């Protein structure tokens, strides 16, 4: 005989598995530190590429003047400034990434907890 409660529960769970559940299960397989660390690493790479693009555009913007001044300027001071800008940008971006993914990981864990409790409930219904 059809058990209405069981069918509703199974439908909800199937819908979850079909949509956000897919990604959440993958996220849930990581430890918090591993997941956030991996995302921060990806962000550092992204931010580095973005920095290179922006820096390239900055140099190319006034390329002639830059080439004229390159022999006069203090290259070490220039490199130091560039590195400070790089670390500020990448560091800031990494911090934002850390916060965003920390929140996301907690949300995913909460939703997975709910999913697993539903799974337990379903198994309880079968055992009745």
């Amino acid at each position, binding site marked *: 005989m059809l058990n209405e409660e069981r069918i509703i529960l199974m439908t909800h769970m199937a819908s979850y598995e079909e949509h956000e559940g897919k990604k959440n299960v993958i996220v849930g397989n990581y430890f918090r530190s591993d997941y956030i660390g991996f995302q921060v690493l*990806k*962000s550092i790479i*992204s*931010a580095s*590429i*973005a920095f290179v*693009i*922006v820096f*390239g*555009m900055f140099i*190319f*913007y*006034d*390329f*002639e003047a830059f080439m004229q001044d390159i022999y006069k300027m203090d290259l070490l001071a220039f490199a130091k400034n560039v590195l400070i800008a790089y670390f500020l940008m990448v560091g800031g*971006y990494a911090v934002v*990434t850390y916060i*965003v993914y920390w929140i996301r990981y907690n949300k995913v864990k909460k939703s997975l907890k709910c999913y697993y409790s539903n799974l337990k409930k379903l198994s309880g219904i079968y055992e009745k």
Partner: protein
Amino acid sequence: MTKLLVAREYIKNFYSKYEIYLWPVCKFLFAFIALIIINGEIGYMHRIENMAIVLVVALMCSFLPMGCAVVFSGLFVLLHLYALSMECALVAFMLMLVMVLLYFRFAPKDFIILLLTPIAFVLKIPYIMPLAMGLVGTPASLFSVGCGTILYFFLNFINENNTTINAMEDEIAAKFRYLIDGLIDNKAMLVTVAAFAVTLIVVYVIRRMSVDHSWTIAMVAGSLVNVMMLLIGDLMYDTKVSIVGILIGSIVSFFLAKALQFFVFSVDYSRTERVQFEDDEYYYYVKAIPKLSVATPAKTVKKINTQKSQNVVTKTAPKTVNTVNNTGRARTETVHTTGTASTASRMGGGTYSTAASHTTGASHTTGAPRTTGTSYSAGARPHTAASRTVGTAQESARPVSTVRTANSVAGRTAQRGDERGSLNRDK
């Protein structure tokens, strides 16, 4: 209002019923419109303006993920800019890449906003974007709307200054500088980005408030803030915006946002309930606002296929004859039943013919015991019930439910007859 709600329910039902077909059609239309707009606004490469190419790409987008429409649109933009000048394409590519790397990595779902915002600008209703995203999005959506706005203004700058860019033939560095200046020193762009960001936040904050009609208040406040900021920006930086354009665009955007609200957040504030309770840890002050919803009138479309129902009767007829051959009385009854059934099937259709076959089944039961007279009495009832049933069906030919009940009564009675028949046999 009720009619609108019914229409909304119809649309919802229709969409949920045919979602599997409608979603690809929507994606196709979206990609097609986006590509047509891109070709119309920045059509420098004539080869990709060919309708066949647009159709093929839009068709591809219909079965690929939604983000692909944005990617293909970006490719179209870059190809057009490349036809104008390689530097333009390079700067646009770098701009898009930085946006994707820094923001859309976090929110890939918002990728579509990057394309929707420039489209809204072309359609002269850009003010819908901060309103809509404030209503259905999060504060982070301001980055998506901001990126879309920057992209639009950059493309618009190239479009307006294409003759100047073309005039700088071999001066790569000068061209590059000109483009970067156009991107950074665009006061109208900065004012618009700031206005959209503030509008979105205002709409979001008010929409989340626990006040009646918060959505409408948010829309009105957002529209006013947007208009005010754009006008102040115009006064401060001489952005040369059209005041009439802003006002008309804001009014149209407001109504579009209202339409969005109708589909997304439709509640009845007159039936608001406030309840208060407590548990061990908290006091709860709950405000519950019922959703506005109506049930769509159910229409049962009944297909009448006379030929088919006649076939059913024809099929049952020989059975009846075979059965009734055993007893004379049964013969009379069954013939009568079949006759009624065929009349019914000529009148009504499927359900009647089913009822008829049930009736015949009942007669069949009547004939089953064959030998004893008691079995007749047992079987006589089902037949009577069946005849009565068909009679009811004849009297009220239209209501389906009546016929169904009759049918089930006939079936049940036949079953009962069967049981009684077996009881008699046991005796």
